[in-house]
């Protein structure tokens, strides 16, 4: 019988050692290819959490949120985030149709993100508006400008009182656009995040 009885064991041990030695090469060859290419866009509250977003805002008060972008496109991305503000009747971006708002951008944030990296941009904003009357019975607020990250932006719109929801509706939203190297143009990247705001008056809101 001799060493023959150890034949299987010997070759199994040798094969395991060979596989162990080959593992660095196998590690590179057997990696599953990336199949999904996308960009994440998110908004966090002042505490860096997905809560505590400003809703009841006051004219002249400054609020902070964090805008984040993570790149999983397989190569670095050149993004522009278009900052827009709308009332309840103005054009909104649509997740279902994947279309952007037709409103003009108030400000363009330019952001570069390496592949598998993320960039977080602190956003501070102050809304300047005044309370008035839309007609004899319907109050309204008139937005005159937004201070965004210390820069004064021209944003002129008005929001009438919504009695059903007890709010002067306003939405500050951020649309993601990406640079297309082939066409040498920016195109809508079909992602946006928004902040629903109630533009509260100094005086108590009417019932």
């Amino acid at each position, binding site marked *: 019988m001799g060493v023959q009885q150890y034949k299987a064991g010997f070759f199994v041990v040798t094969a395991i050692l060979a596989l162990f030695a080959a593992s660095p090469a196998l590690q590179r060859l057997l990696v599953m290819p990336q199949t999904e290419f996308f960009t994440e866009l998110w908004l966090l509250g002042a505490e860096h959490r997905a809560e505590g977003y400003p809703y009841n805002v006051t004219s002249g008060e400054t609020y902070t949120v964090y805008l984040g972008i993570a790149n999983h496109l397989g190569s670095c991305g050149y993004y522009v985030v278009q900052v827009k503000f709308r009332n309840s009747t103005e054009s909104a971006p649509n997740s279902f149709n994947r279309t952007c708002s037709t409103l003009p951008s108030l400000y363009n944030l330019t952001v570069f993100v*390496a592949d598998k990296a993320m960039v977080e941009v602190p956003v501070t904003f102050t809304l300047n508006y005044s309370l008035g009357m839309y007609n004899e019975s319907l109050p309204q607020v008139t937005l005159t400008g937004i201070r965004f990250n210390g820069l004064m932006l021209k944003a002129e719109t008005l929001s009438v009182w919504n009695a059903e929801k007890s709010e002067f509706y306003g939405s500050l939203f951020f649309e993601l656009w990406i640079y297309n*190297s082939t066409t*040498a143009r920016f195109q809508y990247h079909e992602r946006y995040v928004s902040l629903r705001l109630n533009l509260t008056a100094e005086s108590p809101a009417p019932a």
Partner: protein
Amino acid sequence: MWKRMFLLTLTLCFMLSAVAVAMAAQEDASSALASARDTLVQCYSVACDAEAAGANITELQNRLNVAGALLSHAELAFSQGDYESAASLAFQARGALDGFIAQADSLRASAAEARSWDFRINIVGSAVASVAILAAGAGVWHVLKRRSNDGA
């Protein structure tokens, strides 16, 4: 009469020159913005090449973001009619990317070299080691088998 005509001509000349100066400032700012945008796209492209070669482009990304923020400010200033600030900020955006292409090329070359060594050591090295272990195993088994047969 002549005095009045002279004053009118003078006022007209002054207004025309003011308009010409404003238009020139707008044109200067516009071309400075276009130039900054082109530089940013060019730098973005070389950063992508460096990344594709396997380089860590975090530092390049940070530099691009600094220049991008300046460009955004410049565009805002331009849209608000502040052409002097727009031109100045666009110029600063370009300045923030001085030496960028050389830095990206250097990172790309380093990454390509590192990748070459990585290939030699991890792919070729480990494949050769694996084959050597199998060959050694077969050799050892052959020797052991012969000794066992000789003993019997």
